[in-house]
């Protein structure tokens, strides 16, 4: 039951973009078209799940037993960077169509603060292994939900008559603000 609550809350209530403000760069940059938003969301969910597994293992099997937790930041970022590289090579070999779909978004994920945030938040909250994985999957899905909704709105926005200075990032941020307001409604759920 607790696990289901964690899963739902990481998608809706503690949404990565609208609650933690992590991953704003891809959220603003890759949300202009619906299909690229879907690919980005998929890539992030995928990497997040794997990162959750590896960062937990590194943290609990290496850093904590040897009292090295001050190396958390350095080791997490290195793990994420090399993991993204590995995943990219692996997907290219195993499934070229998937590689085509994710394309340029995979390398971009390295500098996505959402991934680093996931590793840090899971360590900060002292989640056990199962919880960390569920948190990873849920957060990835929440990210996908927000970016896909945003892309849908922005495609319609292209047809609207927006004042000149508001065009681009300005209106996108205001739309995100209104979406965050709507998502506040979910906070009563858990």
């Amino acid at each position, binding site marked *: 039951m607790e696990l289901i609550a964690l899963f739902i809350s990481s998608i809706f209530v503690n949404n990565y973009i609208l609650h933690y403000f992590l991953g704003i760069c891809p959220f603003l940059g890759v949300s202009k078209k619906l299909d690229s938003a879907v690919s980005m969301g998929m890539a992030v969910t995928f990497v997040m799940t794997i990162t959750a597994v590896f960062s937990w293992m590194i943290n609990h099997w290496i850093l904590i037993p040897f009292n090295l937790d001050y190396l958390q930041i350095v080791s997490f970022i290195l793990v994420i960077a090399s993991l993204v590289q590995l995943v990219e090579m692996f997907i290219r070999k195993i499934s070229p169509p998937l590689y085509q779909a994710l394309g340029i978004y995979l390398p971009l994920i390295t500098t996505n603060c959402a991934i680093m945030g996931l590793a840090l938040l899971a360590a900060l909250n002292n989640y056990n292994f199962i919880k960390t994985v569920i948190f990873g999957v849920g957060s990835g899905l929440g990210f996908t939900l927000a970016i896909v909704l945003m892309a849908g709105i922005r495609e319609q926005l292209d047809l609207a008559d927006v004042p000149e200075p508001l065009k681009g990032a300005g209106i996108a*941020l205001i739309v995100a603000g209104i979406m*965050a307001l709507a998502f506040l409604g979910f906070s009563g759920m858990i």
Partner: protein
Amino acid sequence: MPTKSIAQEYIKGLWEENPVFRQLLGMCPTLAVTNAVINGIAMGLATSFVLIFSSLVVASIKKLIPSQVRIASYIVIIATFVTMADRFLQAFFPPISKSLGPYIPLIVVNCIILGRQEAFSSKNSVGRSLVDALGMSSGFILALLLLSSIREVLGAGTFLGHQVMGAWFEPWIIMILPAGAFITLGILLSLALLIESKTKQRRSE
């Protein structure tokens, strides 16, 4: 290829190439920690510390770093300084460290810092990189200060914890919630664009 004077190198970070308003970099911390002025200042100072020192180090050892592994090397240098800032805050300012939570460690993935190393420090002398880092940091602190002042005054009626609005003032709770951050930054960005296009118009006339 020095084309700008030292002063210009500094000034550009404040407005012309302001990391937040003009380059749209470092949005995550900008939005996340600006619910109170004190958090904004702490975040700004911590980011500046990391930016200035990693620029210095990168600029001084740029000839030793092979270009294939430069990004990884920059990240390790940045992560070292971030760890120092994080540990320092935890030891001397535990309440601030607590309220900023994971956002101090997340400075490591702040695109402003990596962006400056890649775009500037790896190509320029130590002195110039220092001035550039100082300018960018000032621009970043300025943006955080502006955003957090608006949000704290409207959202809680206080400034740095002191009551500034009269008793009649009903705080706009929305401003300290995530939604307020997005909307305020959206409006500020548009204002910056508006001012820029107006000054350009005037110059061309």
